[in-house]
């Protein structure tokens, strides 16, 4: 069995958000990490490997420095790593990104493709389902549990107020939630081996059945009109009062605003 896990290198927005003196996001000061949902997807693949001896390939699209997350995945136990990088791929929206990754995946044999549900920089949750659509295979999003059974997968699919147990014939694509598992650490031996291993690097020429007009900024149907740091509502009043004064203060405000 062959599994491909699509991963992304992202700035760590959780807890470690840093700002420049002018208030803009200081991306250089933020750690670059493997996207959490993707890491859970990789762990799910490695658990299937532990059980069945499946071959796990990790694939990322990004700048050359995304090599770091591929090495991390190799150190966790992935067998092969592919970096898709090319200047013509820059500025891609989710449509162009999924077209690019699908073009890369067409070169590979796979039974199962796993992506994270969403990346913490964009939070769109679109690339996984769009890859499946481009490849013409079924997609199961928001996976909380994945089991392989013969030529099928059984997936616990999360919704707001319920879950569905779904069965899909492979090949198929699953998008993983970080709740799926707790990813393993890299092993010292694994880290050592990871830097010995070859990372395959693919460019535009290696993408199969993809038109130039569907790639990068030019191939992106969505265009950014404006991007800015969030303008927040200004602070109101702030008072320091003892308990009974505080109560009177709140009561006055609630009456003033006709809440009571």
């Amino acid at each position, binding site marked *: 069995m062959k599994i491909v896990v699509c991963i992304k290198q992202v700035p760590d927005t959780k807890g470690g958000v840093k700002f420049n003196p002018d208030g803009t996001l200081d991306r250089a000061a933020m750690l670059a990490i493997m996207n959490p949902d993707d890491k859970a997807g990789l762990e799910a693949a490695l658990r299937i490997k532990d059980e069945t001896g499946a071959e796990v390939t990790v694939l990322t699209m990004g700048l050359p420095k995304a090599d770091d997350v591929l090495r991390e995945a190799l150190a966790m136990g992935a067998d092969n790593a592919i970096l898709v990088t090319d200047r013509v791929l820059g500025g891609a929206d*989710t449509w162009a990104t999924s077209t690019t990754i699908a073009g890369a995946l067409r070169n590979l044999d796979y039974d199962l493709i796993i992506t994270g549900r969403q990346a*913490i920089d964009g*939070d769109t949750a679109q690339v996984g389902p769009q890859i499946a659509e481009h490849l013409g295979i079924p997609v199961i999003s928001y996976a909380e549990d994945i089991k392989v059974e013969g030529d099928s997968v059984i997936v616990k699919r999360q919704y707001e107020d319920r879950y*569905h147990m779904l069965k899909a014939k492979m090949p198929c694509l699953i998008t993983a939630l970080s709740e799926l598992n707790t990813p393993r650490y890299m092993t010292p031996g694994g880290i050592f081996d990871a830097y010995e291993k070859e990372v395959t690097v693919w460019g535009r020429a290696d993408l199969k059945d993809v038109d130039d007009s569907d790639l990068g900024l030019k191939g992106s149907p969505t*265009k950014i009109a404006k991007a800015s740091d969030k303008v927040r509502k200004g602070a109101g009043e702030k008072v320091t009062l*003892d*308990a009974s004064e505080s109560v009177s203060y*709140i009561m006055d405000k609630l009456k003033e605003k006709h809440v009571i």
Partner: protein
Amino acid sequence: MALEEYKGVYIYAQQVDNEISSIAFELIGKGKELAADLNTDVTAVLLGYQVAGLVDQLAEYGADKVIVVDDPELETYRTEPYAHALASVIKEYKPEIMLVGATAIGRDLGPTVSARVHTGLTADCTMLEIGDFPLTVPEGKEDTQKHNQLLMTRPAFGGNTIATIACPDNRPQMATVRPGVMQKIAPVKGAKAEVINYNPGFTKNNKYVEIQEVVKAVGTVENIMDAKILVSGGRGVGSAENFQMLKDLAEVLGGMVSCSRAVVENGWLAQDYQVGQTGKTVRPNVYFAIGISGAIQHVAGMEESDIIIAINKDADAPIFDVADYGIVGDLKKIVPALTEALKAELA
């Protein structure tokens, strides 16, 4: 793609168990504003099995037309038959705007359909308006600017930045919209919509997955997104037992209790009650932030509340930057005293 052939504002009227989700009415409400700017009307797309009875409700909330695809294959949500149905409606009727809720269904259906009809999709929008793209052009280049475009605004980087996005060369312009952000209109009793029944035909293929079991969560009857008053607690509340003080306050005000992520992580309340980037977006009339420091991810889910009252012992807590009324003080003394004062006042 002949862009001018695409007309009208369409919204995906999500239903689950033959009950229309609140997001559908919110999308109609927003859709009406956009349609007024474009001088067109709002069409709700209703997919399901034996759902004809839901049409009038969509009309009462403002839909001018309802396209119904009614088929046994659509009884329970699955990506493939639903994506086939919605993509077929788009190909047949050519809307210029297609709005979908950013729910666990919409965030699966939206991307699949956008890839199938080859158009852009902007995720989790919090603001939609009609305007020009590019927003401004140099003098003499006015002919390169497109008018009447859907401008879609969304947070990114965990709520730290916002981006406004357009889809100038493809149709429909598609967006998923965060639940709880757009306003529904007051329903007009007896309103009727033009009903169009349409069935593209369903042929099973490799993309149809099998539903083995549907398991509904039990015990979560109340939804914090519906509350007019929320009494929300954070790490500063201190313990699960101390949440009783907040519950008492919520009860006397006819509101509900909600919380920050830290509270869920400590196991004091279930995730259903979590407000913020990874929880729910709420906009109650009054939001009490009690012992909540105000991390950016939390603020992203509550800053649209009409009145924000914060109580925190740390005068430097970032929650005071968004609060209308901030009290630096001891919540364990203030909250019970406030509850008693309200009881006396409302008795």
